[in-house]
C-alpha cells in the first residue's frame, strides 16, 4: 500500500515534466529543428521556483490559491486511477464521480484566480475555460459509464483493470475503441493542446489556458506549469490504460511498461500537434459536442 502510494507519487512528480519535453521535442523534430533537450521543462521549473514574484495589486488570496489547488487536484486524482497495471492506491465504489468533480474544483479556483486580476484578457480565458469544460465533462462521464457497464463496477481501479484483460477482441471492442478516441480528444481539450488551444502562442486573443495565467509569475507560475503537466499525465493515463498489457506480477516491470506507453502517447500528441492547425474558436464547441455524441454512440452500441 505505502509502496504503491510512493510509486504513484514518484511516477507522477518525476515523469510529468518529461511528457511535456517529449511533446515539444517531437514537434521540433517534425518541424526540422533540433529542439530543446528533453529535460528542459525540469530546468524551467527549477528556474521559476528560484525566482521572485510580481503580484498584481488588485489580487487577493484567491490568486495565490489557484496554483496550489491546480497542483493538489492532479495529485489526489492520480491516486484514484491505476497507472497501467500498477493499481490505484486509493479506490472505493463511485470514485469516478470524485475524479471528475476534483477537476471541477481545480477549474473553479483557476478560473477565479484568473478573474481576480480584473484583467479582461484573463476574464476572456476564464469564460472560455468554464464554457468548454461544460461540454467536455459529459464526455468524460460517458466514457466512464461505458467502462463501468463493461466491468460491472463503479471503481476506477476495477474499471481499468478489466480493460487489461484485452477486451478489444470481444464484443465490446468497437465501443472501447470509440471511447478511447473520445478520451484522447478530451485529453487534448482539457489540457489546452492543439487543436483546441495552442500552448506555444502568447497571443492573448486566441488562448484559453495560457491567457488565464498571464499575471502569475515566479514560483506560482512554476506550480501552474507543474500542475498542468501532472494533469496531462493523469488524463493521458486514462488513454494509455486502454492499450496496456495485463500485469506481469512485478510492480516495477509494470511501471516500466506504463512509462514506455506514456512516452509513446506523448510522441503521439506531438505528432497530432504537428499535423494540425488550431481550430477557430467558434468551431471548438462543435468538435466537443461531436465528441460527446461519439461517446454517446459508443454507449448506444454497448447498451443494445
Amino acid at each position, binding site marked *: 500500500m505505502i509502496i504503491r502510494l510512493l510509486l504513484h507519487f514518484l511516477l507522477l512528480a518525476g515523469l510529468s515534466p518529461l511528457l511535456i519535453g517529449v511533446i515539444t521535442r517531437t514537434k521540433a523534430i517534425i518541424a526540422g529543428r533540433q529542439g530543446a533537450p528533453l529535460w528542459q521543462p525540469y530546468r524551467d521549473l527549477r528556474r521559476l521556483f528560484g525566482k521572485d514574484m510580481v503580484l498584481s495589486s488588485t489580487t487577493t488570496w484567491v490568486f495565490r490559491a489557484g496554483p496550489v489547488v491546480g497542483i493538489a487536484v492532479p495529485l489526489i486524482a492520480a491516486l484514484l486511477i491505476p497507472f497501467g497495471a500498477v493499481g490505484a492506491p486509493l479506490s472505493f465504489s463511485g470514485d469516478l464521480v470524485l475524479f471528475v468533480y476534483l477537476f471541477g474544483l481545480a477549474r473553479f479556483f483557476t478560473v477565479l484566480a484568473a478573474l481576480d486580476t480584473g484583467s479582461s484578457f484573463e476574464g476572456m480565458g476564464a469564460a472560455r475555460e468554464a464554457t468548454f469544460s461544460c461540454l467536455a465533462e459529459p464526455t468524460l462521464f460517458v466514457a466512464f459509464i461505458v467502462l463501468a457497464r463493461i466491468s460491472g463496477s463503479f471503481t476506477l481501479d476495477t474499471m481499468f483493470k478489466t480493460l487489461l484483460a484485452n477486451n478489444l*477482441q470481444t*464484443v*465490446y*471492442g*468497437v465501443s472501447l475503441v470509440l471511447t478511447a478516441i473520445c478520451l484522447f480528444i478530451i485529453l487534448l481539450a482539457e489540457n489546452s493542446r492543439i487543436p483546441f488551444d495552442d500552448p506555444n502562442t502568447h497571443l492573448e486573443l486566441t488562448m484559453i489556458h495560457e491567457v488565464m495565467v498571464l499575471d502569475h509569475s515566479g514560483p506560482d507560475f512554476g506550480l501552474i506549469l507543474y500542475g498542468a503537466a501532472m494533469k496531462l499525465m493523469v488524463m493521458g493515463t486514462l488513454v494509455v490504460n486502454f492499450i496496456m498489457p495485463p500485469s506481469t506480477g512485478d510492480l516495477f516491470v509494470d511501471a516500466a511498461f506504463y512509462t514506455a506507453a506514456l512516452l509513446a502517447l506523448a510522441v503521439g500528441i506531438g505528432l497530432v500537434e504537428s499535423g494540425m492547425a488550431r481550430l477557430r474558436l467558434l468551431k471548438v*464547441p*462543435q468538435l466537443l*459536442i*461531436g465528441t460527446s*455524441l*461519439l461517446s*454517446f*454512440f459508443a454507449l*448506444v*452500441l454497448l447498451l*443494445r
Partner: protein
Amino acid sequence: MNTPPNLILLFVILFNFFILGTSRLNTCIRSVALQGALLSLLPLFLHTLTFHTYLLAVGAFVLKGLLMPWLLFRAIRQVKIRREVEPRIGYIPTLLLGALTTAGAFIFGDRLPLLPEHLHSLFIPAALSTLAAGFLMLITRRKAIAQVLGYLMFENGIFIFGTLLAETMPFLVEMGVLLDMLVAIFVMGIVMHHINREFSTLNTEQLSLLRE
C-alpha cells in the same frame, strides 16, 4: 460485432454524424461518396460470391463512389459555389437530432421481428439512422446541392436494406433505384445550373417566392 460488415456499417453511421456536423460542401460530397463506396463492399461480405454479387458491388461502387461525386463536383464548379452549407438550424442542433434518431434507430431496430441471424447485427439500425440523417440533411440545409446530398444519403440507407434482401430481391430493383437517383441528380444539376444563371443564387428559400 467485429465482423467486417458490422465494421463497415459502424463507419457508415460515423460518416452520418460527420456529414451532419461538417460545414464544408467539398468535405460533405467526399464523405457521402466514401460512405457509398464503403457500402458497395457490403454485398461481397454478406453473400456468396456470384456474378450477381460482383455486379451489385462494382455497380454500386462505380455509381456511388465515382460517378455521383464527379457529377456533383462538376455541378459545383459550374455554378461556382465553394461556400459552406448554411444550415437552417445550426450544426449542433442537427448533430443532436442525428444522435437522437440514431439512438431511436437502435431501440426500434431491436424491436423488429427479424431473422435470428440479423437480430443483433447493425443492419437495421444503420439503415434507419442513415435514412434519418438523409432526412435531416433535406430538412435542415438551405442549399440545393446539400439537399441533393441528403437524397444520396437517403439512397444509401435504402441500399443497406437492399443488401439484406439482395438474394431474394431481383437486383434490377436495386439498379433501378440507383438509376433513378442518377437521373434525379442529372436533373438537379441542370436545374441548379439554370436557376443559378437566372437568379444568381441557389438558396431554396428564395425559390419559394416563385409559388403562385
